[in-house]
């Protein structure tokens, strides 16, 4: 919240769209603003009435550079919008930088997402430090329901809950890297970096970065689903393959490769396989191991065919590893299996588990 917990005294808040951006149809702007207000109305007793003239509590406008409040915008990029906390006069007013390209999708700045954030300020919410919260100050494109637990807790502390609540599924808080119960969805190398997928986030571990960096998957790759099941790097082809359900995507560096997504069955997996739990490429053999439930498959990257004699049992071929794995990685003759909150360091040549650690030891915890 802002200092002094500024809020509207009345639950019936009025708004007016003073002018429109030429980037979108008028109806699309109306729709984006109404949807953004509804995000907050769904979890509070607040109602929003649209005015077409006169002074409303929340005056919404598009302007560029100095636009009348001595709080200028800065041209394309940088500052996207700002809003004032509840109060008389300029209080609650919400301004969007007209020098930005406003869109309905992820191709430039999505008006709905920015509006939902700014209207949060207009209702009394300050910035959140949770990178998954709508009230985080940096723009990130996401799809689906935009509020996180942190946003809902904040707005309900000011106005209380909605007396007739709709069933909303808030986004969980960002994962905490040193949570002893932390599990991973997928782990891969990417040109010397390590990428760890967890829920709708990924950690990036770079040899020259002291701290792992946590980012929303959607903010880097808007077309990849929010949940990654498995990923591996094929350094010879300079590709990272990302699996989600029955589809897979390819990255070259951080760029998505054209021609994807493809079905995982193109690799030669039977149609009965609906999800890959973990994937790892063994540089020394040129094989990629794909783990599904209690079994694994071997894919030959040279011939681009599935090896015969598979699937085989994980438990039989990797003694000491439990029967299922969440993620896998390979370094210098060792396979690193992640299952639940544990990480198994397994020697590929001597077929033995050498060490068991917490999964998040990879994140310096």
């Amino acid at each position, binding site marked *: 919240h*802002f*200092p002094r917990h500024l809020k509207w005294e009345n639950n019936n808040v009025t708004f007016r769209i003073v002018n429109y951006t030429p980037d979108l149809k008028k109806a699309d702007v109306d729709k984006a603003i109404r949807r953004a207000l509804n995000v907050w109305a769904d979890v509070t007793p607040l109602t929003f009435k649209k005015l077409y003239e006169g002074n409303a509590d929340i005056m919404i406008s598009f302007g560029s550079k100095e636009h009348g409040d001595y709080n200028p915008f800065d041209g394309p990029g*940088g500052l996207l*919008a700002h809003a004032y906390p509840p109060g008389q006069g300029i209080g609650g007013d919400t301004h969007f930088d007209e020098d930005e390209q406003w869109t309905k999708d992820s191709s430039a700045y999505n008006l709905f997402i*920015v509006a939902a*954030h700014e209207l949060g300020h207009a209702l009394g919410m300050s910035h959140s*430090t949770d*990178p998954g919260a709508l009230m985080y100050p940096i723009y990130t494109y996401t799809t689906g329901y935009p509020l996180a637990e942190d946003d809902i807790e904040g707005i309900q502390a000011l106005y209380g809950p909605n007396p007739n609540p709709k069933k909303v599924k808030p986004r969980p808080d960002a994962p905490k890297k040193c949570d002893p119960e932390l599990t991973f969805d997928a782990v891969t190398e990417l040109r010397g970096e390590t990428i760890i997928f967890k829920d709708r986030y990924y950690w990036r571990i770079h040899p020259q*970065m002291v*701290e792992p960096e946590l980012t929303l998957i959607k903010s880097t790759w808007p077309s990849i689903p929010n949940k990654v099941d498995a990923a591996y790097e094929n350094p010879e082809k300079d590709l990272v393959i990302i699996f989600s359900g029955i589809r897979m995507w390819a990255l070259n560096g951080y760029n998505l490769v054209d021609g994807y997504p493809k079905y995982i069955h193109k690799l030669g997996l039977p149609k009965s396989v609906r999800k890959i739990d973990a994937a790892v490429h063994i540089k020394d053999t040129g094989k990629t191991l794909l783990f599904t439930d209690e079994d694994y498959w071997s894919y030959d990257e040279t011939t681009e065919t599935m090896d015969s004699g598979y699937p085989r049992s994980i438990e039989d071929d990797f003694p000491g590893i439990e029967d299922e794995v969440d993620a896998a990685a390979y370094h210098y003759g060792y396979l690193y299996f992640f299952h639940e909150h544990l990480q198994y360091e397994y020697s590929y040549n001597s077929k033995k588990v050498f060490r068991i650690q917490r999964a998040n030891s990879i994140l310096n915890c």
Partner: protein
Amino acid sequence: KPLSSEDIDKQLLAEKYLRRFYGLPSGLQGSRTSSNFLQAKIKEMQKFFKLEVTGNLDDNTLAVMKEPRCGVPDIGEYN
């Protein structure tokens, strides 16, 4: 020795950012030098964004400062 133009650019970017979002005061403030204030404000910003808190303008800190964002300050009173 004189700062390179790149260092000056970074410093300007940081000062502008911290003034706008973290209430960095302009000019010298009493017995504390402006660089003390700058370092304290960098630390505040690094803490907010869960970066490594060094008080230095490292690459990660500058990268966050360059991200597109909301114009509302992250801390303090908003007038």
